[in-house]
């Protein structure tokens, strides 16, 4: 049995790093999020502030094509607020009876509107770089929300002798350290309705949490269900073991 335990341990050790083998990541700062851990949830106030940061800052370049305005109900916006947010943008619809495309105010069922008509337009406006879509960004980056936060606060002067490309910015946490995105956040860039001080760190935390919610909107429901199922299975396991003992009792 000891050999088995050793093997099980080895398996765990071998699989864990292997699964995330690619890319040597720089150690990210130990930021805590309300969504951390087995029972973490999305702090609604922070998530809503994060949406504000996304809407006022990030959305100028970054799309979130998989989200609809109606999804914002899940982070605690009221129906009126969602309708107002949606109506704030003009979306193209049509063709109408005359065969013409037309613009109308957005509805909750519309997907988040994209600032650029297409990828080429986005590149043209961004020094050739394509701002990635944010729908599942925390699932698509090693480190998730923690990485997003680190990236946003990770701008600094390049070390002496570091050759920078033209129009590039040095970022401590970006792979290769050269990022085409200018530092997007400045202190007090947004004005939070709840009067939270809008430091760069605070905005970065909020928007990272918002993006985490956007990538995994099922997270809270999933964890709640998981707790119930594991508890149920625990009880069932005890019963199954008891039954097995009873049945086997006459064999020994």
């Amino acid at each position, binding site marked *: 049995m000891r050999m088995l335990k050793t093997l099980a341990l080895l398996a765990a050790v071998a699989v864990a790093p292997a699964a995330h083998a690619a890319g040597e990541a720089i150690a990210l700062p130990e930021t805590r999020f309300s969504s951390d851990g087995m029972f973490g949830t999305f702090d609604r106030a922070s998530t809503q502030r994060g949406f504000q940061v996304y809407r006022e800052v990030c959305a100028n370049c970054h799309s979130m094509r998989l989200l609809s305005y109606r999804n914002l109900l899940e982070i605690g916006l009221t129906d009126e607020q969602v309708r107002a947010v949606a109506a704030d943008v003009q979306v193209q619809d049509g063709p109408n009876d005359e065969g013409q495309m037309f613009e109308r105010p957005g509805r909750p069922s519309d997907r988040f509107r994209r600032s650029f008509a297409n990828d080429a337009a986005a590149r043209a406006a961004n020094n050739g770089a394509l701002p990635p879509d944010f729908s599942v960004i925390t699932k698509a980056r090693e480190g998730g929300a923690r990485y997003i936060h680190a990236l946003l606060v990770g701008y600094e002067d390049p070390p002496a002798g570091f050759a920078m490309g033209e129009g590039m910015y040095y970022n401590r946490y970006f792979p290769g350290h050269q990022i085409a995105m200018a530092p997007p956040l400045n202190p007090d860039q947004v004005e939070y309705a709840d009067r939270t001080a809008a430091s760069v760190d605070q905005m970065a935390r909020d928007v990272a949490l918002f993006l985490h919610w956007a990538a995994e909107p099922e997270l809270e429901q999933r964890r709640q269900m998981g707790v119930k199922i594991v508890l149920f299975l625990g009880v069932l396991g005890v019963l199954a073991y008891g*039954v097995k003992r009873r049945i086997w009792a006459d064999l020994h």
Partner: protein
Amino acid sequence: MSIGLHKSEFSNPVIRWVDSRLPIFTMMQKEYGTFPTPRNFNYFWNFGALAMVTLMIMILTGVFLSMNYTAHTVYAFDSVERIMRDVNYGWLLRYVHANGASMFFIVVYIHIWRGMYYGSYKAPRELLWMLGVVIFLLMMATAFMGYVLPWGQMSFWGATVITNLFSAFPIVGSHIVTWLWGGFSVDNPTLNRFFSLHYLLPFVIAGVVFLHIAALHITGSNNPLGIDPKGPQDTIPFHPYYTSKDSVGLVVYFIVFAILVFFMPNYLGHPDNYIPANPMVTPPHIVPEWYFLPFYAILRAVPDKLGGVVLMFGSILVLFVLPWLDGSPVRSMRFRPVARIAFALFTLNFFVLLYVGGKPAEEPYVTISRIATAYYFAYFLVILPLLARLERPLPLPESIARAVLGRGGGPIPMAATAKPMEKA
């Protein structure tokens, strides 16, 4: 075999009516009720049943996922995310299916490990073992094609790398690759045929599993001692003894499965697969899913492409001839002091291969992968054949009952000789 109605022993008139025309109840009773099974299984003997259950989970979740999936390069990624967001419990279906693949391989690797440790591949179970290797190969093909379907970056580039392996074969290689792709690169025709085959192969697996179990029920199960049951005192009926024991293992298995699905659903996946496939951008490191890493390491251990491909396929094909490479008449490694150590090293070596398979192809990983590849093959082709001649096995116990109970037989439990239960 005589023609005519089967003489059913069931008293329920409906069951009796059916059973005398189509004796499935008698068959179930014989194969899963009274089926004589060695009395000394340990919990490693759960894993065949666990694999069976996992196959059913995969087929069920897969059928429902496919109702909402669109096999087209433009829509595939978004349709998967639509399942995650807008389909009722779609996230649950998808995470169970995606993590189910990992669980399936964990279970099957342990199942194979158990077969190798306790010598379950030896006569008379060679064909049973070979059918198992066929299932393993089919699983690998199915899992590979399934991973392509979400059409993320790793889907696309994994498909590109793996299908390109066939180009290593001289003359016909490039034609095979074009034929596999259905075009001149991995594209929509590739995705379509992979989806079609990914839906088909699980049912082929189910068919081979049926043969695997049919063969098992001819030879009977091996056991941790590796000696044949010599009489009724050595066996117990499958039900209720092993149905109850399998239930315990199943619940524990489900707990592990649930923790993965509900609390760390993306732990075993690669973040790059949440980036939509882009033929113009190659990821810095292309790595397959974790369960392929040992074989990926063998592939990359050889500097020559064809050599690597041959060794990689060879590393699985060698399993087909394992029953004849290991000529030792002693099945269980409990009684093989030297082979036991060699096999422990083989197991360790497998994890080393898994580890280096996930690392970039640079030093020291290349050298480690070469040594590990050499040991992988040496175990099968050199160590086992040699040990069959040189090793002196420990004395085998006289019988299972004597080894388990410490006495020569003991009272036969009532249930072991009981008639088929009234309610089947």
